[in-house]
């Protein structure tokens, strides 16, 4: 179990139950709450919400140290601890980093770089890719890669798949599959719709698979020596990399997924002075990314990235307007019509998992006339993920989401390449290794199946 509620700390206010998209939190008002693990999708929104902190007055002077130990948190952690928490997996990472024989590779998700600064007192939504890379290198990772690169690859795979489905009369609408909590939700509740999910893996897993194959070749390492870590805004990513099918590289594709907050703990534990860090670059070639990869961190981002590339793949012309504003926004479910040459591509975007249920019902009933639907579990996509820095006051969450979202779009605008298929490293990957999107090898490494158990 990745997400848990401490029965001794929970006051039973049930604020978490209000934000749980799958009604997995049960209990009487005023009594400790229990998470129904079979329903839980591990999105971590309850962790973000919980304010029932370990208190000197209510729990005594020794409670804090005891609970920190119980949760296996670094001793350096001084911040308040709450009833709802995610299981800490830093031990394995620390061990790998200390082990001289292990070649440690790390990737970090697009939403991490617009939030981690907040944990060090920077303003909400401060964009810090350079400091992030520097900190990870200081922590001792041998390769500091970026999930934005595999995000670009995801677009190549998923986009090709979509065009294929549209052209060949495949199962439509096709759903994105980047969000593991969403995938788990569909598997739990609508298994009959599993074929609607794109078979492409999430960027984290695509990255993991590439690092231990093509990456290993480039570094002339054995895949078995590589320890692959991902830093994610998400509590559910740890579950995703744990899925038994995620070992197409021949090894576990990603060895450990940690959250943005956990990374901040690591940095503090290592006594790295974040604010004094000088910006550094990600390692190449998997640190090369486009704006399309960057916007994966916000709701509508995957869709926008897919359109930027899909338009060109289908029409052979470059898209007139790179900013596809019609798919941006924060509403729970929104649709847009995109003209891709002669094709009128009908797309939908869901953010906040509870908004997906009517969509799924409509798909099941066959009443939803869309080609492609992006689904993200968290309120405004990964920027609002369960593993992101937790706000002390929820009154600032809208502001935080807005600032992080805008930082991501700012980042997109300032990048040299803004379309996944233009990423030179991606091109090279296909030229040298994968041959083509949806090639046999690509299929083997970068695609997956669902409802296997």
């Amino acid at each position: 179990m990745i997400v848990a509620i401490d029965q001794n700390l929970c006051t039973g206010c049930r604020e978490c139950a209000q934000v749980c998209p799958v009604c997995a939190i049960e209990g009487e008002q005023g009594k400790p709450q229990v998470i129904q693990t079979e329903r839980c999708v591990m999105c971590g929104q309850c962790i973000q919400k919980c304010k029932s902190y370990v208190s000197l007055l209510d729990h005594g002077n020794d409670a804090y140290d005891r609970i920190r130990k119980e949760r296996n948190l670094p001793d350096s952690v001084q911040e308040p601890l709450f009833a709802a928490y995610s299981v800490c997996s830093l031990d394995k990472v620390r061990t790998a980093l200390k082990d001289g024989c292990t070649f440690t590779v790390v990737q970090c998700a697009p939403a991490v770089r617009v939030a981690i600064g907040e944990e060090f007192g920077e303003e909400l939504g401060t964009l810090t890719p350079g400091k992030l890379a520097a900190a990870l290198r200081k922590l001792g990772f041998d390769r500091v890669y970026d999930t934005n690169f595999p995000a670009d690859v995801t677009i190549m795979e998923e986009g090709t798949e979509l065009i294929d489905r549209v052209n060949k009369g495949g199962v439509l609408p096709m759903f994105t599959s980047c969000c593991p909590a969403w995938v788990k939700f569909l598997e739990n509740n609508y298994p009959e719709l599993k074929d609607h999910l794109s078979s492409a893996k999430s960027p984290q897993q695509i990255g993991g698979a590439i690092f231990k194959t093509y990456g290993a070749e480039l570094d002339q390492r054995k895949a078995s020596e590589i320890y692959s870590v991902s830093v994610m805004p998400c509590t559910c990513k740890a579950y995703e990399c744990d899925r038994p099918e995620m070992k197409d590289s021949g090894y576990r594709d990603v060895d450990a997924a940690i959250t943005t907050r956990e990374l901040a703990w690591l940095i503090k534990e290592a006594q790295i002075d974040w604010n004094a860090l000088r910006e550094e670059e990600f390692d190449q070639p998997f640190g090369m990314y486009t704006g399309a990869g960057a916007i994966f961190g916000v709701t509508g981002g995957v869709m926008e990235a897919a359109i930027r590339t899909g338009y060109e793949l289908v029409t052979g012309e470059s898209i007139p307007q790179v900013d596809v504003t019609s798919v941006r926004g924060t509403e729970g479910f929104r649709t847009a019509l995109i003209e891709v040459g002669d094709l009128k591509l009908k797309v939908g975007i869901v953010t906040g998992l509870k908004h997906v249920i009517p969509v799924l019902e409509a798909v099941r009933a066959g009443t939803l006339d869309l080609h492609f639907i992006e689904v993200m579990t968290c309120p405004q996509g990964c920027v609002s993920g369960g593993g992101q820095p937790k706000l002390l006051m929820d009154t600032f969450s809208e502001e935080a989401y807005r600032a992080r979202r805008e930082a991501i779009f700012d980042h997109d605008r300032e990048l040299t390449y803004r379309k996944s298929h233009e990423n030179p490293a991606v091109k090279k990957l296909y030229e040298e290794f994968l041959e083509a999107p949806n090639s046999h090898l690509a299929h083997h490494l970068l695609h997956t199946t669902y409802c296997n158990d």
Partner: protein
Amino acid sequence: MMKKELGSFVIGDGRRCTGCKACELACFMVHNQKSNHVGMTVGTVGVPVVPRLYLTRFEQGCMPIQCKHCEDAPCLNVCSKGAISRIEHQVVVDEQLCIGCKDCMQACPFGAITLLPYAKDGCLVPQSGSSETKVFAAKCDLCKDIPQGPACVNACPHQALRLVDPEAEREEKNIKAANALFYMKNW
């Protein structure tokens, strides 16, 4: 603005309160932004959470309890150190001056004061001549010096806290009572 004569105060509503402690955390946050470098997120906190209002549970429910800024404040009147004073109508504790004698805590009929660790610049302050932490009388100061008013009121997801401006509300209630007389008629 009508010249203010009375101290405002925040009052909890047990019918709405769920006991989530968002008020306590918000209170702690705004009072430690400057003195203890607390930012917007949990990770920026390096000192124990010390609130100035206290979520109180009872059989039928719960509600936050905080200072009423009494106009003849027993806490102020008992403080031998002169650490409690009325500043712009609010009863405020000078944390530096407080020696933790507990007199105010005993004098307050509402339990609105308690002694909690005192931190500064992100560190707990030790007592002089001892390694133990200095404490201070923690009570609501109505977010004096903090823009946007009492943080607890703003943070509550259920509007279970209300900032009472007793004078203005009295006038409003007067008008309502007068209207009642108007409707009552004298049949």
